[in-house]
Structures are given as structure tokens and as C-alpha cells.
């Protein structure tokens, strides 16, 4: 299974909340959705907590991506 991205997880979460808020969902379905939502929430939080800082990249002249570090000094 493809790993769910943070953004997609958040999107799904928002959808579920909207769904639940709109009412008219049978109880069992509501509970399933709630469980799903809690799982997604946990996933997102884990992702956030374990998020490591991304390395900034720069497109080199040869068309390849390289790590990019800001050089201090004048503009």
C-alpha cells in the first residue's frame, strides 16, 4: 500500500469531520469513521513529531539536485 502523505491524511480528516458534522450518518458508520479519523490523527501527529528537517536542495547547472546551504555574508 502506498504510504499516505501528511497532506492527504489531513484532507481525509477534514472530509470525515465535515461528513460527521453534516449529520444523517448511521451510528455504526459514524463510529467507523470516528475510528478512522482517530487513526489518521495519530498518523499525522506521529509524522509531525518525528518529522526531521528536510534538506534544502538546489538545481545544479548540470540539471541534478544538490544539497543547498546558505552562504553567510553579503547579499
Amino acid at each position, binding site marked *: 500500500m502506498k504510504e499516505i*502523505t*501528511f*497532506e492527504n491524511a*489531513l484532507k481525509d*480528516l*477534514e472530509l*470525515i*469531520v465535515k461528513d*460527521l*458534522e453534516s449529520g444523517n*450518518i448511521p*451510528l455504526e458508520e*459514524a*463510529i467507523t469513521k*470516528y475510528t478512522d*479519523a*482517530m487513526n489518521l*490523527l495519530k498518523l*499525522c*501527529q506521529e*509524522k*509531525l513529531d518525528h*518529522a*526531521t*528537517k*528536510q534538506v*534544502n*536542495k*538546489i*538545481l545544479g547547472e548540470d540539471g541534478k*539536485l544538490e544539497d*543547498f546551504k*546558505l*552562504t553567510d555574508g553579503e*547579499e
Partner: protein
Amino acid sequence: MNQEYCTVSQINQWIKLMFDNSAYLKKIYLKGEISNFKHHTSGHLYFTLKDDESRISAIMFRSAASSLGFVPEDGMNVLVTGRVSVYPAGGNYQIYVDKMEQDGLGNLYIEFEKLKKKLALEGLFDPAHKKVIPKYPTKIGIVTASTGAAIKDILSTIERRYPICETILFPSLVQGASASKDVAEKIKIAQNYDLDLLIVGRGGGSIEDLWAFNEEIVARAIFESKVPVISAVGHEVDVTIADFVADKRAPTPTGAAEMAVPTIDEVKKTFHTIELKLASFLEIKLKEASLELKKLEESYVLSHPMIIYENQIQKLDGLEENLHQALKQYLVQRKMMLDHIESSYVLQNPQTLYEQKEKDVKNYQVLLLKNINRIFSLKYHDFQLMVQTLKLVNPLNILEKGYSVVKKDGHIIKDSHVLKVKDELNIDFSKGSISVEVKEIIK
């Protein structure tokens, strides 16, 4: 004698005084072309202003130069204000520049307005084309110079707010003649990197410095970008064509980064809100459900199950009643039909049936007799006709008219050639017969 001579310093001071006393030279407006430009390490600018025939030395002190909106260079036409005075140590007069701006800016302004109008007409600024900036981007592209304040501001802001976001810098020229082409090309290249968002811009500068972002080629590249674009050119006050085309305009590069990513704290707060919402929702839902359940439990039917049964009994009774009724009705009907049949005339008087049949037989007898008589007389007539005809063709009738029949050995002779002399023949007459002998065969 010596007193008649003054020193070099004295004369230069005196001349300086004369210059400084001149109201006209205190503030003059001058236009010319820069040459021999020198940016001294002290921060002061030294250069010459010239026109086709003359030149004048110029100096701009660091304090004045710091507010310059552009980087002066040789060959540039400029408008300056300042005072003309003498530098006693060098014995030369020069203009001390307070303000300097580029000549020909009016043209740029006209160009800007023209392009803006054209692109607006084409619909490049139409809100309908604006793409939504994603809330939680995972990969952001940046088109700007690899050095300078802009990239520094953007990256540090993203790092501070939302370090889990990946960034790719597409280094580009951001000023000078080929900047616009380079920026446009980098925007196009950036399309291939699966980005959620693109920040295009540069730090502050003079209107000429920012000009690349007023070029049509950049505007079109931004418009054609499939990735949402945030423009971030110069400072708050600088508005470029790129800003109009971009899906969102940021006042500064830092502002662009703030628009591009949320802060981790914001996201966590969002989570918390969602969690609360979900929990309260479920609670409400469960409360609703249990209320519903209670209501059902307390419902009349469930608390008095007998009534389900009672109803059924009543229903059954009703059905039984109906059944009896229906059967009764059915029997009555049948009885009535039977009575009707029994009371019919024929069944009451069977002899009439016999009489009727007898009458029919008599009728048939009469008819039969009549038909037989008719057929008999027809056939008798036919017979009479036949007898008449037979009479006409009877050979005896022909003999009666005087003809005779010649026979030999019982065969009628019709041709004399079959006979020979001395043949014996019989001749039958109407009355009687004779026997004769052939005397001669006449040819």
C-alpha cells in the same frame, strides 16, 4: 612684499566661499551621464557627470548613497540634485549629490501600463485562473537568486515554521537584461519536480532591478505554470506584473514563505480542534442513539406486547365473519339460479318438445315428396327426348324410305371393289330379304 601674495589654501578657501555664497549653486538640478564611477570602500561614491561637451566631478556621500534605489554604473543617464562647491585640497569644484535617480523612468512606467492592460485584456489576471494554494505543502520550489536576502528569508522562514517541508531552489538571475528569460525558464523547469507550490521573486531593489518581473515572458511563464505560484518581488510597495498574474501575491519573500506553509503549532492546534470535534460529535451521536433506544423501549407496543396479539385476534374474527358471509351469499345465489332453471316452461311442459319434433318430421315428409316428384318429371322429360333422337337414327327407318342394305357373309358392303364376280350377296329390304349373285364389277 610677501604680504601681496596669498597662499594656495587661502585662494581655494576664498573661491569656495564664493561658490558657497551663490544661491544658485546651493541647490541645482543636473542631468548627465555617469562615467568613471567608483564605489569607494568608505561607502562614498565618486564619479563624473558628463554630456557631449563637458564634464563635472561628482561625489555622493555614503549617507546619501544608502537611500539609492539602484546601483549606478557607467553610461547610465541620471537626474541629480545637490550643491556645487569646491574641494579646497584638490582645487577643483564638484557637485555634492544629495539625490540621484535614473533618467528615462517615465518610459518604463508607460511600458508597464501598456503590458498590464494587454495581459488584463487577455485574461491573465482573471481570478477564475487563480489556483488554490495548498494548505500543507510537502515540496516547495523557489525561483530566485541563490545568494541574497530573498532566498535566505524564504528558507529561514520555512525552516522556522514548517521544517518538514522539502524545498528546491531553482537558481535564477533576478536582474539585468537576461533575468526575465532566466526566470521564465526556471519556472518552466520547475514544473517537472512534482511541486505543490512555487515561490517566484527576489528581494528589494530599484524599479530597474525588479524589472524582470514586469516582463511579458515572466508573466506568461507564471500563467502557464501548473503549480500554484506565489509571487514575492521586492518590498510591500513594489507591485509588478508578476504579482498580478501569480495565484497569490506576497509583499516580501518572507511574506511568501509565511503564506506557503503553516506553522507546526498551527497544525497541532488544528489536530486538537479536530480531535475535540470528533469526540464531541461521537458523544452527541451516542446520546442521540441511547435516547432513541429508550424511547423505543418505552413505546406502548413494546411495553404492552398483548396488543399486538389482540389486534391479530380481532382481525382473525373479522376474517371468519367475512368468510361465513361470503359463503352464505354464494349459496343463495346458486339456489336462485337453480330455481330459475327449474321453473323454465320447457321443463314444466315436456310434451311440447315432442310436438315440436313431430311437426318438423311432417314438414320434412312433404318437402321430400315434392322434391322427388319434381326430380321424376325432369328425368321423364329427358327420357322422351332421348327416344325421339333414337328414332331418327334407327336404320330401319332409312330402309322404310326405300334404301336397301347389301351384305356379304353378314358384313355390310360399302365399296364395290371388295367384291368379285360370282360372290353371293344378301340384300335386306324394309320388308323381307333376297340372295343374289354378282354378275359384273362396274368400274
